[in-house]
């Protein structure tokens, strides 16, 4: 036993302080099996009493080689891997992937598909923030928050099941559009949600926002300055809570986000409470986008007519020889993409989710790199927890909202 400890300390020697080597401070493992690490994350903590001196995150427990796997599949078939990345944001991952493929092969998307993509990714953003709100409430001992949040999230997952047949691993967006048009019940389901959700946000806020116990645990904890955030590549709500007004939906509109009227909530305090407030405001803004997109949703096709990239509808296969050939070619061989590389980014609930996609002229990508926001956001953790209590570490970790599937890929 003692031998194992010595070896592991040797490995981390350059990361801990001198006092750890003399035994003055204590090294403690938090995770990988720990409810507050939101997955399989191991944190090696150097503690002086209850104060964190150093924190060394150890990741990779959930590494499944998604990038390598995607490189061995055709462009259509690689899409299912993206669902498994950030399992709180499956629609958003699909969107990032299909947008990258569309940019690489230069494929147009019909307006109705764009509208559906916006509605569903914004609903997904709400669902993701609800999981964050519920679990961070749970970490701070507000048990009831978790139950309330999951009640609303369930309603969104039901909408996903309605459109794609799946609650989580949707793969609903496809290069050139979406899988198929939404059923007639879709509009009512979304309208029901739009109607009840604002009241529910007020309910969450009554429980938490002005709660003195909650504020005590959140205010002035885990301060992240603007400069540190940018240097560490932090994006998303964590960056906006540090006073940087940067949202890809506003800065570089995609999918027709420029048509919708919404604000980008920002805060300047940079602490855990600011990150909480930014996300709560984002719930409201996302709901506004969903409502506008649903009102504006045009009628028309939901998939591109470009048969070199998009398979024909099933109904055509029985009557048209060309359709049969296209269907067969696309699902066996796939479509070729140019020998070039593109970088395409979207705003996920956690920050900038981007794909670097490199084609080699054939039907399979030469290189897929997933720039996942949680990876960089977790990188800053060891910087901002220094000097805080272990209990505050839990609050900070919850406030940067990581998903381990997103980090380990």
């Amino acid at each position, binding site marked *: 036993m003692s031998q194992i400890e010595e070896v592991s300390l040797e*490995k981390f020697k350059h990361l801990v302080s001198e006092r750890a080597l003399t035994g003055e401070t204590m090294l403690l493992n938090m995770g990988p099996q720990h409810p507050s690490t939101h997955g399989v994350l191991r944190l090696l903590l150097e503690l002086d009493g209850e104060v964190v001196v150093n924190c060394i995150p150890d990741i990779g427990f959930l*590494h499944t080689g998604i990038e390598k796997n995607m490189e061995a599949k055709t462009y259509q078939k690689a899409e299912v891997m993206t669902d498994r990345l950030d399992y709180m944001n499956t629609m958003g991952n699909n969107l990032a992937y299909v947008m990258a493929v569309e940019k690489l092969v230069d494929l147009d998307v019909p307006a109705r598909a764009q509208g559906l993509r916006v509605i569903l990714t914004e609903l997904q953003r709400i669902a993701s923030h609800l999981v964050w709100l519920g679990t961070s409430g749970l970490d701070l001992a507000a048990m009831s928050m978790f139950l309330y949040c999951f009640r609303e999230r369930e309603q969104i997952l039901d909408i996903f099941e309605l459109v794609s047949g799946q609650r989580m691993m949707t793969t609903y967006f496809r290069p050139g559009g979406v899988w198929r048009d939404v059923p007639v019940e879709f509009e009512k389901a979304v309208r029901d949600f739009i109607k009840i959700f604002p009241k529910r946000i007020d309910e969450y806020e009554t429980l938490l926002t002005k709660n003195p116990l909650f504020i005590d645990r959140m205010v002035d904890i885990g301060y992240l300055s603007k400069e540190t955030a940018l240097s*560490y590549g932090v994006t998303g709500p964590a960056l906006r809570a540090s006073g940087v007004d940067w949202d890809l939906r506003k800065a570089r509109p995609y999918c027709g986000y420029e048509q919708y009227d919404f604000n980008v909530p920002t805060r300047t305090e940079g602490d855990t409470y600011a990150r909480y407030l930014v996300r709560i405001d984002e719930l409201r803004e996302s709901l506004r986008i969903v409502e506008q997109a649903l009102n504006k949703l045009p009628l028309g096709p939901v998939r591109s007519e470009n048969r070199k990239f998009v398979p024909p509808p099933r109904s055509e296969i029985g009557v048209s020889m060309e359709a049969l050939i296209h269907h067969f070619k696309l699902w066996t061989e796939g479509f070729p993409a140019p020998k070039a*590389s593109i970088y395409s980014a979207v705003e996920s609930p956690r920050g900038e989710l981007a794909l670097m996609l490199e084609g080699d002229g054939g039907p399979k990508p030469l290189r897929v790199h997933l720039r996942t926001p949680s990876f960089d956001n977790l990188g800053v953790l060891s910087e901002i927890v220094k000097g805080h209590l272990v209990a505050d570490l839990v609050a900070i970790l919850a406030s940067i909202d990581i998903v381990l599937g997103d980090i380990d890929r």
Partner: protein
Amino acid sequence: MNKNLEPVVKAIQDKFGATYEEFRDEVHLFVKPEQIVEALTLLRDEQEFELLSALTATDYWPQESPRFHVIYQFTSLAKNLSVQIRVPLNGSSPKVQTVTAVYASANWRERELLDMFGIEVEGHPDPRRILMPDDHVGHPLRKDYPLGYEEPQFTFNFDEIDLRKPYAKE
């Protein structure tokens, strides 16, 4: 090319003699490995590229020179621009200098480079593997690393493959 990006490309070209490629309005600048720290410092301090969005590599195996491109993707929040810098490296002992002093986010990204591609990062403050276990052999994202398919065994090569199969033997 976006006309706001032109001065940036020109600055890098003038200073480092970089060549560039363009595809779908994206610009890739090619610089030499020894210039990378200087080029990044110039981008951050003079051209306001505050964010190192991504740092990764591509393996062009079986091509040997260059075998790798190390890729640095930048975003400028102030100017709303993106640019990519690529560093071609040869297949035998690929090596780049660390840029952690310029962008702190490079720390984990460079560890990933080391782990996944076996590209050595000179002067890195914490050169450990990041995703794979410490005792793992090989670099998974290299093209000559197998995806994990089982080799089909036939009568003529059964024993040969059986010998190197990684299951417990008596």
